């Protein structure tokens, strides 16, 4: 099993931690993991992405150009990555934020109401957890339990009171798929 995913969106949408939590969960399950953020001044443009690879085997390059799955939280990310998904792969996007939805027919596309769900939970900052929930529901890359454990490790102690909210957001996100 190998999952080559990319998470992309505006800076501030929690893009990087989404991938990091997934990588952490992969590690908890004993897998090989690799997480690689975009870096440098292109970030001034306001976009960010993180490649996350989870595999049973040695991981080759941390930088790849074709993906099993793409999570896109803004229009530029949809535009940029839709065509980099392998045939049969998955594209998840936040339907609340996208004007021109993706059009490919040879992949599975999920437009989830991420932002709305987050607003419903009264905290827009959990958008990333909602979407991660949808991602896991769609891909089953790791067990949700590993995600919960990963969250504990990734979130600094002083934010641990937010764990239940994040878990809730994740669950809501899972529920958006099917």
């Amino acid at each position: 099993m190998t999952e080559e995913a990319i998470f992309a969106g505006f800076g501030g949408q929690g893009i990087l931690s989404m991938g990091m939590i997934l990588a952490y969960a992969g590690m908890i399950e004993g897998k090989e993991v690799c997480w690689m953020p975009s870096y440098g001044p292109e970030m001034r443009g306001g976009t960010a992405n993180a490649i996350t690879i989870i595999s049973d085997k040695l991981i080759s390059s941390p930088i790849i150009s074709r993906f099993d799955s793409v999570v896109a939280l803004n229009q530029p990310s949809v535009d940029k990555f839709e065509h980099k998904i392998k045939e049969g792969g998955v594209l998840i996007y936040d339907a609340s934020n996208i004007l021109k939805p993706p059009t490919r027919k040879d992949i599975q596309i999920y437009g989830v109401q991420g932002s709305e769900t987050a607003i419903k939970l009264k905290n827009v900052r959990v958008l990333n957890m909602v979407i991660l929930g949808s991602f896991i529901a769609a891909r089953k890359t790791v067990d949700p339990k590993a995600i919960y454990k990963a969250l504990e490790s990734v979130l600094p102690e002083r934010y641990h009171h937010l764990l239940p909210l994040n878990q809730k957001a994740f669950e809501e996100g899972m529920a958006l798929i099917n």
Partner: protein
Amino acid sequence: MGELKLMKGNEALAEAMIRVGCDGYFGYPITPQSEVIEYLSREATPRTGMVILQAESEVASINMIYGAAGAGRRVATTSSSPGISLMQEGLSYIAGAELPCLVVNVVRGGPGLGTIQPSQSDYFQATKGGGHGDYHLIVLAPYNVQEMVDFVKLGFELAEKYRNPVMILADGAMGQMMEKVVLFDQQPRKTEFPEWATTGKPKDKPHRVVTSLFIEPEVMEQVNLRLQAKYREIEQKEVMFQTIDTEDADYIFTGFGLGARIAMKAMEIARSKGIKVGLIRPITVYPFPYSIYKEIAPKIKGILDIELNAGQMIEDVRLAVEGKVPVEFFGRMGGMIPDPESVVEHFEKVFLGGK
């Protein structure tokens, strides 16, 4: 066994510096390795008293390293390509004065300001050229975050054993990516310093002088001969490389660092197609593992070298095999990453007559 963590290469490297008992770090920010000095600024001094100083430039950094290493301390600096170019005079001085220290180059694409994306185009600089004069750095090429940690320790051991600067030649990806890593335990900082270090003239013993100046050519030649003898010893004793499935191999893929990871994947793909490919990964790129290539050359049909540059290590591979087997190249430049499928495709084209 130490802790298992998920860490960014740059931060793992910084953490390893603290744990290995470094006395000081002098550096100047540059992408893609600024996390090193940032991590150290947060973590190091409170934990071990390690001195962290942001220098005014890379020229200053490397000369601070010279001074601090000359005082017998364990010190390190890190930078990326343009910054490392600025250190070339200083590195030559450090090699000439035989001071142990650790220098890390998290390579980005050049020449010039280039791009900040990962590259391996400083191989020649690290292993052959660089500064002026006949000298060598010991150059370690990590291929995952674990080695970013391990080579800090190994690097200081080699540096101190040979009184020679050691370089970790990584690349932007090694610095930026997160992987699993096992950390070694905190080591105490040194309290005793080598005899040659300038820590204040010892009573009734001659004063110590750290210098690379030997104005009389007769003396300078002796110094050069001593340095060359040291390099021959290093070439004898310290070569490190990894081989995979070379026993039955018809072909060899080779590469260092990120190139080697890609080569490994490409090898898997080739094997899955029934082509018997093995792999050689130089771990020390100076000293270069010439002998393993020489040894294997008569047994195989070809070598494909994969690098993130225009073809640099390939010269060493060719020097090793002396035309006994064809050596071909596949590389991408400017921060582009070769993908394993194209590697195999290229391999099939040049060796199997595919088109």
